[in-house]
């Protein structure tokens, strides 16, 4: 398939990284080891999938990091250790994600504010608002049921992997649907889409809503996996955008697949794992990430002129 062919480079890189990891740490090849990797990668992969929807329509969503933090902090405060509160709170978190996405979308399309600014502003509002509410530091505690998603297993398979599979499948199906086709057409050529009857504004708003939803799910997983802190979502928006770009999705929209974006996220996570195994951790991770992101984007913009236009 055309999409798979264009994913060649990122899959190759991913494969190489996975092999290198296995060489350094053979435990990786065992189901438990590999599943642990997937568990760690799940939140970023889901975030990248959500960010993909926004980027392929030609926009940015810088608010997902703060949104994740908000999710975790709100959950802790509301649940406060009580098991019974888990499910209602989970529902609320989803709603928050949807609403934030909706707000981002409406402000960007309705007020014609560049999405960069809208989601930047939203980032400030979210981080301000949540700490306003909690009085400066996260309070309360999550419940075991909540943590289950990020931390525990269902049988041999971690919950987060199941969630990842569900989310990934949903994303793929969504992009294959009429909506997905409309979305990518909008990112490719907004005018042509509008003149073909696409509701351009609504389609973009929906993309932001999906991104918000993805942030909610990622937040739920991260809360269980990493615990409650004020920094849980820090920098995630940049990581998500990096992952999407790594997967060959162009900033500006119209090109690339959600599978590629998720592959990009796996690759980034694999890179982090590998760096950790080599003892390069913490700070230098960022430096390497910086180099990679520039190199990946530069490479993809260089490749294009070599594609000769075949006149059929």
């Amino acid at each position, binding site marked *: 398939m055309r999409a798979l062919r264009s994913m060649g480079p990122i899959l190759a890189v991913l494969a190489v990284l996975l092999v290198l990891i296995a060489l350094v740490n053979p435990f990786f090849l065992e189901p438990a080891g590999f599943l642990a990797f997937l568990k760690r990668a799940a939140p970023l992969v889901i975030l990248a999938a959500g960010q993909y929807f926004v980027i392929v329509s030609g926009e*940015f969503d810088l608010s997902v990091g703060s949104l994740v933090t908000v999710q975790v902090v709100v959950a802790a405060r509301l649940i406060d250790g009580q098991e019974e509160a888990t499910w209602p709170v989970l529902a609320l978190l989803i709603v928050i994600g949807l609403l934030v996405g909706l707000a981002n979308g409406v402000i960007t399309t309705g007020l*014609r504010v560049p999405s960069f600014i*809208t989601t*930047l502003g939203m980032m400030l509002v979210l981080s301000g608002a949540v700490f*306003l509410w909690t009085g400066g530091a996260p309070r309360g505690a999550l419940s075991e049921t909540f943590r289950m998603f990020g931390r525990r297993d269902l049988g041999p398979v971690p919950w987060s992997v199941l969630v990842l599979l569900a989310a990934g499948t949903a994303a793929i199906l969504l992009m294959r649907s009429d909506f997905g086709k409309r979305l990518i057409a909008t990112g490719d050529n907004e005018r042509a889409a509008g003149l073909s009857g696409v509701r351009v504004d609504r389609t973009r708003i929906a993309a932001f809503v999906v991104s918000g939803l993805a942030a909610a799910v990622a937040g739920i997983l991260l809360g269980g996996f990493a615990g409650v802190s004020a920094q849980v979502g820090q920098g995630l928006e940049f990581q998500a*955008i*990096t992952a999407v770009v790594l997967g060959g999705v162009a900033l500006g929209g119209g090109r690339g697949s959600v599978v590629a974006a998720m592959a990009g996220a796996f690759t980034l996570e694999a890179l982090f794992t590998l760096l950790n195994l080599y003892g390069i951790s913490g700070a230098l991770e960022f*430096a390497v*990430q910086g180099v990679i*992101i520039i190199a990946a984007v530069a490479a993809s913009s260089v490749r294009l002129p070599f594609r000769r236009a075949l006149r059929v």
Partner: protein
Amino acid sequence: MTGRSRPAAATGTAAPDAPAPREGGKGRALAGRIGSTQVIYLALAGVMLVGWVLVALDGGDFLTLETIVGIQQRSAALGIVAVGQTLAILVGSLDLSVAYLISLTSLVAAEIMAGQDGGIVPGVAAVLAVSALIGLVNGLVITRLHVHAFIATLGTALIVKGIVDHLYDGPAGSVPDSFQRLGYDRIGPVPVSALLWAAVALAVWFLLRRTRLGYRIYAVGGDEEVARLSGVRTGRIVVAAHILCSVCAGVAGLLLASRLGAGAPTVGTDGGYDLESIAAVVLGGTALAGGRGGVAGTVGGVLLLAVLDSVFNQLEVNAFFKDVVRGVVIVAAVAVYARRGARRRSR
């Protein structure tokens, strides 16, 4: 981010055979120049008024010398960075690496000065060199590797962050007392740091208004194709803008080092200088797409944010509430500018 667009035209001229009156043309020009810059200063005046009222109601006194000096102090570092960011945005680009660059340069300064007066000159020189270099890298990655400014400067930011966080855990180096005066001294009521900011702002303002480079920055930001067709070397202009932007960030790093007495790896991010500087520029009416706006507006934007800050401090408002208000103000301002822009275009 810039694109080709037909210059929007005002509606047709006067009656046949009568050339439109000269004053009419001039009047229209004035109306256009009561543009975004005036808007931000009106907003600033408005905020100051509201702030004064609120503080008075709360029992305090807003416009004391203390507060004004405090505002000047607070805004100096951000102001310097924002002036540099103005250049990047005017040319149609942007710079997300300034915050980490500030941290880096504060450390470079403090380490080289090492508490010695004799280290001041080498320290400053090193800072300027390092900042210029990073600005050059940013510019080249954007123009030669054809990487979007967001990604390019994000990448640079991460690389610098990586290096800084790897080498340092906390404050390091030390700044000699004589240099610290930069951060703390006053000449009369005016802090030296505010003078520094004013000097930088004036210099950049001058550059934009009176030099070829300034003119061409506006041209490239306004319509790159048009500029290119007129023989302007657009790549070089973008690189120059980025170098200057980074140098401003470096100067801000020097200022912060002089205040702290040392360099620190978090000084840039703690202040949120990357996004705050973009916010100040955008608040001041410079279009994110480039080609329109200037230093005057940015100064207004910085002052507005500083006044907001000050008002909140006086009212002892929760720091987080400040963030919320800031976020709303930024989005609202851009929405207003977007409306005005659209209305202008459809005339």
